[in-house]
């Protein structure tokens, strides 16, 4: 057997040194640990379907330059933080002025807080499952630290706009850490967009820890350009009676990957994970989710829908892991896929790993096409074929789109979906 190729050492040289010392130390330590990391291949279970899309060429190794300015003005209502190539642009941000809510760039943290953070970073993500999240830890140049004091409630959604300016090739490593205190509430929107047309890599990591009774709603929209590879990971740890709501919307690209790992660590914690993925042309999108029921009496509900057209490739891998002590767990997973063309491919793997007996777990997965009879029904009533296809496809995912709690994201999603329908059904 020929040796597996390893991560180029060029990837392990971080840029920007303007972080507090404890974080610089953490970064260096993660970098050392990654030396000679074998790159995923088709034989790497976790990357079975996606390794061929991942291209970590040398030109992507250097950090994208950060000019400290952001691109075109953003018409985002309410609170927002802007990352430009992985570094926060303070002047473009609008932050809430509320007691009990701390929102700070990593670069501005004082040493003691930075030391505490350095201890906690990466704790929510399994190193093996989200291998490339460690690369973010070795490379991040900035990050956003959010802490909600007990009972603090953010009155409006906080938008985190992560802009990648790919006017030259390179990579960016935005980072987010949310510490939600007891009974606090937060709605957070992560939006990933890009400009420029050079090949680029975005490696984004977000981590959430939810204390007892905390409620966090996370919306994640991945909509970068065709030149940008995106590898993202989100890690969540939940304590008693906390709730985590996740809505991921993903549009395909040359390489798109999102790892979502949730650990329900104390009784009564529950999570709901929704996801919509749309791919066309030569695009690719891979969602990997893991829900760990560590404690008894936890609930999880997961619904993912994929639509693949053209020659695209959509992947879903969902794992529910019920630990031995997690009796009385309820876990449901549903993954439905719509394959719109024969050139496209959908791979799905809904897994259950169960070590407790008094549980209710179920998963369902389907792959199919639009129902011919439904199309006929519509067409026979004078609806154009294009319209009929659009209607039925929209109906397939609308349930999830409508659940997105932030209106502006729903609108953006709808616009992108309309573009998708336009190009997909026109050619058909």
């Amino acid at each position: 057997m020929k040796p597996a190729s390893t991560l180029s050492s060029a990837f392990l040289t971080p840029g920007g040194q303007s972080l507090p010392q404890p974080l610089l130390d953490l970064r260096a330590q993660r970098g050392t640990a990654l030396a000679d990391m074998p790159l995923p291949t088709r034989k790497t279970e976790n990357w079975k379907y996606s390794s061929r899309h991942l291209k970590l060429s040398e030109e992507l190794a250097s950090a994208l330059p950060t000019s400290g300015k952001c691109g075109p003005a953003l018409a985002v209502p309410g609170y927002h933080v802007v990352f430009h190539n992985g570094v926060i642009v303070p002047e473009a941000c609008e932050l809430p002025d509320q007691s009990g809510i701390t929102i700070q760039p990593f670069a501005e943290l004082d040493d003691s807080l930075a030391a505490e953070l350095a201890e906690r970073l990466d704790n929510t993500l399994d190193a093996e499952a989200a291998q490339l999240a460690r690369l973010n830890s070795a490379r991040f140049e900035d990050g956003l630290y959010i802490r909600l004091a007990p009972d603090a409630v953010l009155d409006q959604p906080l938008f985190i706009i992560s802009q990648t300016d790919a006017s030259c090739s390179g990579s960016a490593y935005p980072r987010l850490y949310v510490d939600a205190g007891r009974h606090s509430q937060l709605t957070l929107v992560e939006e990933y967009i890009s400009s420029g047309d050079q090949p680029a890599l975005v490696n984004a990591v977000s981590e959430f820890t939810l204390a007892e009774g905390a409620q966090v709603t996370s919306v994640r929209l991945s909509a970068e350009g065709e030149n940008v590879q995106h590898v993202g990971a989100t890690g969540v740890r939940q304590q008693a009676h906390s709730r985590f709501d996740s809505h991921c919307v993903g549009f395909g690209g040359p390489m798109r990957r999102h790892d979502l790992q949730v650990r329900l660590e104390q009784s009564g914690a529950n999570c709901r994970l929704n996801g919509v993925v749309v791919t066309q042309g030569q695009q690719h999108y891979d969602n990997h989710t893991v829900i760990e029921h560590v404690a008894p009496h936890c609930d999880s509900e997961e619904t993912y829908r994929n639509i693949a057209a053209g020659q695209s490739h959509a992947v879903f891998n969902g794992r529910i892991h019920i630990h031995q002590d997690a009796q009385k767990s309820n876990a449901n997973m549903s993954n439905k896929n719509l394959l719109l063309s024969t050139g496209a491919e959908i791979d799905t793997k809904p897994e259950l790993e169960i070590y407790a007996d008094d549980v209710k777990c179920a998963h369902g997965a389907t792959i199919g096409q639009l129902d011919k009879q439904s199309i006929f029904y519509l067409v026979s009533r004078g609806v154009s074929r294009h319209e009929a296809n659009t209607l039925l496809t929209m109906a397939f995912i609308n349930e999830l789109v409508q659940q997105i709690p932030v209106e502006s994201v729903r609108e953006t999603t709808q616009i992108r979906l309309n573009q998708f329908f336009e190009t997909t059904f026109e050619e058909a």
Partner: protein
Amino acid sequence: MANTDRQVNELIKREYEHGFVTDIEADTFEPGLNEDVIRRLSAIKNEPEFMLEWRLKAYRRWLEMDEPDWAHVDFPKVDYNAISYYSAPKKKEDMPQSLDEVDPELLKTYEKLGIPLHERAKLAGVAVDAVFDSVSVATTFKEPLEKAGVIFCPISEAVQKYPELVQKYLGSVVPVGDNYFAALNSAVFSDGSFVYIPKGVRCPLELSTYFRINAANTGQFERTLIVADDDSYVSYLEGCTAPMRDENQLHAAVVELVVLENAQIKYSTVQNWYPGDENGKGGIYNFVTKRAACIGNNSKVSWTQVETGSAITWKYPSCVLRGDNSVGEFYSVALTHNYQQADTGTKMIHLGKNTSSTIISKGISAGRSSNAYRGLVKFGPGAEAARNFTQCDSLLIGDRCAAHTFPYIESQNKTAIVEHEATTSKVSDEQMFLCRQRGIDAEQAVSMIVNGFCKEVFKELPMEFAVEAGKLLEVSLEGSVG
């Protein structure tokens, strides 16, 4: 609860009924594997040159391969050089021509197992090609089969008598380099069954083979090849028990089914090898490659299995649906208890148009066992209007057991439809209450509920197997309530 606990403890103490060792002098190779061993093996069996070449090719491929470790099982590494690769009952020069000549010790063994080998066989309507360790020693029911033109014989005999058929089909479904254990089997397989059903023939009997592992430290490497020519039909039964042993015994079998135009094969297995004692000591390693190729149009393969034995079961009976309109079915009940581990499931590979497949898998784990379903459903670009339905349910009995589901679903054709569903639950308190309230004891109630859980699969089994399977489940589940 105390009452049930006591019952449980009593029942747990019950030992494996089929655990005994027959004392027969065996002609056995010294442990170890190299090209020389394969040459000797081939020479003993008086094989033609092509077989030796084939074995050596497999052996060379095997040397280059790494032992797979992806399955959800845990066991100490097997030392392949500590295994003896050949063991035959003595007096092989004068093989018995009829049952009278068979070593009475052997017959006694079969009797203890309740195998209907002589007259009982006829009454039961079963032709038995019994494999005792490595060489087939007795074959019955040759005549009615011969009349129909069906070939049913040990594969070693087929190599001599029908070399052209063997050469054409052996390894055509599972190539020598397919996987680690298949390569090992191809290199050293000792014996097994060969079935050929000629064009247009419906096999008049249900064919059956009982396997038995006997001499200590001998790996058993069966090779089964069934070819159903155009418009033919055969139902094949495979069942096994093994004597109690403390060392783990490796079993790496290969089963190949070739199904041509309009033909149908029904392959049923009841596997009840020694699962190890209540502490997880001993037991058989069952690493099997089973695959069917539906080459012709309108062909059909149906795998039915009831797996209750073996310390470790690692097998995926698969169907390659190449012919248009071909059908693949997989019905499985896998029960694990104590420290047993099972990683089993199926692969349905749809290549032809209008192909369809059904997967019904029922996993039951009790004690400290681990039971995984791992399956692949794949639609190639040419699988127009292909269809799959998968249902895998797990039942957990006891809070220290584990049940897993790892389904892989891959689709490259938009007209193909796949549906997969899986559930995991335990025997519910309500169900138990209902039964107990009506005077049914806990043990019986569980057995009843489990039987109901598996009903969909049992109804696919041939009659006599279905009865056996129900019984087997009952015995295997004893001591699991609590």
